[in-house]
């Protein structure tokens, strides 16, 4: 018997054969004694297993078995509490994005086509977040990043002036 027919026979036994394929298997069973014998063997093995699983029991006492589980589930969840970042984590959170932004800005500015002629120019980039100064004679470029702490100094408001 071919393997695919054997597997169909098994699927038929397990109720997993599509209804459209059942007539083929039933016809096979009607005319082939080997198929009937194989089906009987599969069925006997299946029923033997289903009814006779080993009755295993833990040898450890209830308290001993539970103690290890209790220790594991009693441990506090690890990880930093929200709002209590370490200094290193705080610096990484602030400085890494700022550094990345500065690097991208510089790269973009250097990649831009430079105007002909000599002299220097100021460029206000992306809504006052950064300013650049470029000297075409020396090829030097300076970038000012607009940090929040410096806003107060750079653009003092009326109240600040009065306080002074």
């Amino acid at each position, binding site marked *: 018997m071919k393997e695919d027919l054997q*597997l169909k026979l*098994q699927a038929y036994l397990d109720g*997993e054969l599509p209804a459209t394929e059942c007539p083929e298997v039933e016809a096979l069973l009607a005319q082939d004694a080997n198929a009937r014998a194989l089906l009987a063997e599969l069925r006997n*093995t299946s029923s033997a297993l289903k009814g*006779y699983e080993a009755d295993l029991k833990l040898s*450890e006492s209830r308290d001993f078995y539970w103690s290890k589980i209790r220790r*594991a589930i009693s441990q506090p969840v690890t990880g930093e509490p929200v709002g209590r970042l370490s200094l290193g984590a705080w610096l990484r959170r602030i400085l890494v994005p700022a550094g990345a932004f500065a690097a991208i800005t510089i790269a973009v500015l250097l990649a831009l086509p430079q105007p002909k002629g000599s002299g220097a120019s100021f460029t206000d980039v992306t809504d006052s977040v950064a300013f650049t100064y470029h000297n075409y004679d020396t090829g030097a470029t300076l970038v000012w990043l607009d940090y929040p702490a410096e806003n107060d100094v750079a653009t003092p408001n009326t109240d600040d002036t009065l306080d002074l």
Partner: protein
Amino acid sequence: MAAMDHSAATDDALVQAARTGDMAAFEELIARHRDKIYARAYTMMRNEDEAVDLSQEAWVKGWQRLVQFQGESSFTTWMTRIVINLCLDQLRKRKRQRAESIEEMDEESGGVERQMPVVTVNPTERLERAELRVRIDEALGKLSEAHRTVLILHEFEHMEYKNIAKTMNCSIGTVMSRLFYARRKMASLLQDLKQPE
């Protein structure tokens, strides 16, 4: 509010209590079902120490995931799925360690089982119930991990082919093939045990 009588409570009530952090309720659930969870781990791993460790790990995971238990199945069925998955993970680790594939192992031996003569005697006849349990367990131990696992999932856990395939991360065709060879091998092993003296 009156204190809960854990030993008299139903599984559902204990699960609800455990969800609120009642460890005593969870301990009662473990006391009731620990043998079944351990037995499933043992039948898959065939090693007592590993089975104890994995069953305990399953209970820890069960506690951590209690909120995910929606009651579509019984609590024991849910816990059994957890321990089965842990056992499969462990078997895969073993596979990686010894470069032996649970997905591929013993597939080639299927040809032998396919050509074996059909066993016509019912293995459950003429053997005492307890004796048969022991014999079946011994025969299961002689199967490859892949064949034993598929047999356990189908015959003991009553899982459909597609669910076994999903659990074992293989195709339905592979499941059918493994199940067929595993049954034939079991029939042969049980037949050997029943040979007249």
